[in-house]
């Protein structure tokens, strides 16, 4: 338990300074002759690194909690419909043009995430069962997806349409300290709630009836999950768009290093998620690509989809 945490923390301590040097303009720490090096570091790279760490940690822990809650290694925080809800909010701000105002886009996204959370609680909250909850989440996700497609197809101008489509791909390019101040407190709050849910998630390992016999209140646990996932995922969509697969991949990579109890998976998943997003964002920055940067959301999906397939095949072999 402590060893993987230590290894992950050490890797992060190494990766963070390195990530600050990498980019379109490489900075040589021993001969700082690059023009505007300080400016690039403090105003461009540092907020971006902090964002990558924050969002990665939030998404990693959210994935671990989600898999624990649904007792399914293929679960992803996106299943709850909170990410699509947040994305729908952001899309509406772009569609209406309010996104031009400072803070409007993240605010719209957070309202979208909050709406999805409220709907989930309303539909599934009365009895606290997991099955109804999952179905409600999937329904919300597909509804939000349909409304986004509607918004794109009815975009008022071609410019708005391309704005929406680009934004949906998820990226950390051109983010500033403003986004950091939005994402950090929300993510930290969400992480706290997910950690508070840990004991309940451990009990759920034995099934819903046994968890209740161990004194876990399903509705209390569900409320912690909705709020915890809502804050972490909502914050990440609000500042960076949709970044998929982190919540799916990371808990998998980390699980064998732990005793497989969901509560013990949360912190290592947060650290590993932070590391993955930091590295992925650096690669996006460094890869020579005509016409700009590779979008982070696309890069992660490119890595994530084959990984998911590998996982499915391995699970099938395990069952056979």
């Amino acid at each position, binding site marked *: 338990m402590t060893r993987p945490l230590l290894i992950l923390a050490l890797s992060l301590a190494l990766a963070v300074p390195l990530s600050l040097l990498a980019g379109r303009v490489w900075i040589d720490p021993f001969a700082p002759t690059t023009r505007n090096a300080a400016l690039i570091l403090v105003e461009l790279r540092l907020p971006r690194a902090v964002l990558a760490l924050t969002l990665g940690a939030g998404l990693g822990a959210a994935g671990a909690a989600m898999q624990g809650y649904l007792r399914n290694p293929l679960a992803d925080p996106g299943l709850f419909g909170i990410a699509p809800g947040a994305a729908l909010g952001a899309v509406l701000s772009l569609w209406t043009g309010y996104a031009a105002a400072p803070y409007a886009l993240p605010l719209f996204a957070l309202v979208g995430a909050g709406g999805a959370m409220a709907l989930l609680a309303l539909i599934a909250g009365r009895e606290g069962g997991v099955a109804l909850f999952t179905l409600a989440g999937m329904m919300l996700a597909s509804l939000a997806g349909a409304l986004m497609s509607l918004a794109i197809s009815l975009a008022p101008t071609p410019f708005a349409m391309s704005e929406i489509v680009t934004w949906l791909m998820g990226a950390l390019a051109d983010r500033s300290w403003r986004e950091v101040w939005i994402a950090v407190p929300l993510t930290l709050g969400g992480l706290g709630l997910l950690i508070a849910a840990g004991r309940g998630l451990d009990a759920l390992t034995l099934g819903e009836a046994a968890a209740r016999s161990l*004194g876990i209140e399903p509705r209390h646990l569900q409320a912690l999950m909705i709020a915890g996932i809502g804050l972490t995922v909502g914050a990440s969509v609000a500042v960076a768009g949709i970044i998929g697969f982190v919540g799916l991949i990371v808990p998998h990579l980390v699980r064998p290093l732990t*005793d497989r109890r969901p509560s013990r998976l949360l912190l290592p998943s947060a650290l590993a998620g932070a590391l993955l997003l930091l590295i992925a964002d650096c690669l996006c920055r460094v890869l020579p690509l005509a016409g700009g940067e590779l979008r982070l959301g696309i890069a992660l999906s490119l890595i994530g989809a084959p990984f998911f397939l590998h996982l499915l095949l391995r699970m099938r072999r395990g069952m056979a």
Partner: protein
Amino acid sequence: MLAAEQLALAGRLSAVSASLRPGEVAAICGPNGAGKSTLLACLAGLLAPDAGSAALDGAPLTAMPSGLRARAIGYLPQTPELAWDVSVETLVSLGRIPWRGAPAGEAQDAIEAVITAMDLEQLRHRPVSRLSGGERARALLARVLATSPRWLLADEPLANLDLAHAATMIAQLRQLSRTGVGVVLVLHDLAAAMNHADRVLVLDRGRLVADGPPPVALAEAMIGRVWGVTGRWLGEPGAQALALS
């Protein structure tokens, strides 16, 4: 005392009253669909009855703080699930979840004691997926016992166990009752109930039709009436078998 008082649940139980004593092995028997598991879940505080109440030492379970209830009543479901392939030791440690805030040393002592008592020392680091059926059943029971409950409620603990493992399981449950724990089991195997329970409750279509020592509650006439079969008990008391004709 764990007591059901005029317990009723729409379509499943009607006016069931019984009070169970600590240190006693009680078996709940009845045909399929008689409401055995429902009664057990009510007694465990997992199902709220429509009318009547289940109470622990006079306090209704549905009004009791869930943590307090969880420390007093251990519950082993009929088909125990395990979502993650944890080790035996980790599985057993899950039984300490209701004791949040207790000193860590106390938890470790309880886990060690159960691992020794259930003869799981050799298997403690083994993933549950690599256990045999009998070992798995033992580990799952150990998880419930790690809570140190005053009551153990188990739904069909002998299902899927072969003869030898079923005998071991029964011996362990009897040993537990001697330490003062109240043991309540749903049993399909009438011979096991006849030979090893102190008391048998017979349910038929949601009603309690017999409650007493095994020879009375499982008398041949009662078996004929409730299960609709003609059977005869053979053998010595304590080692009887039911012969059907």
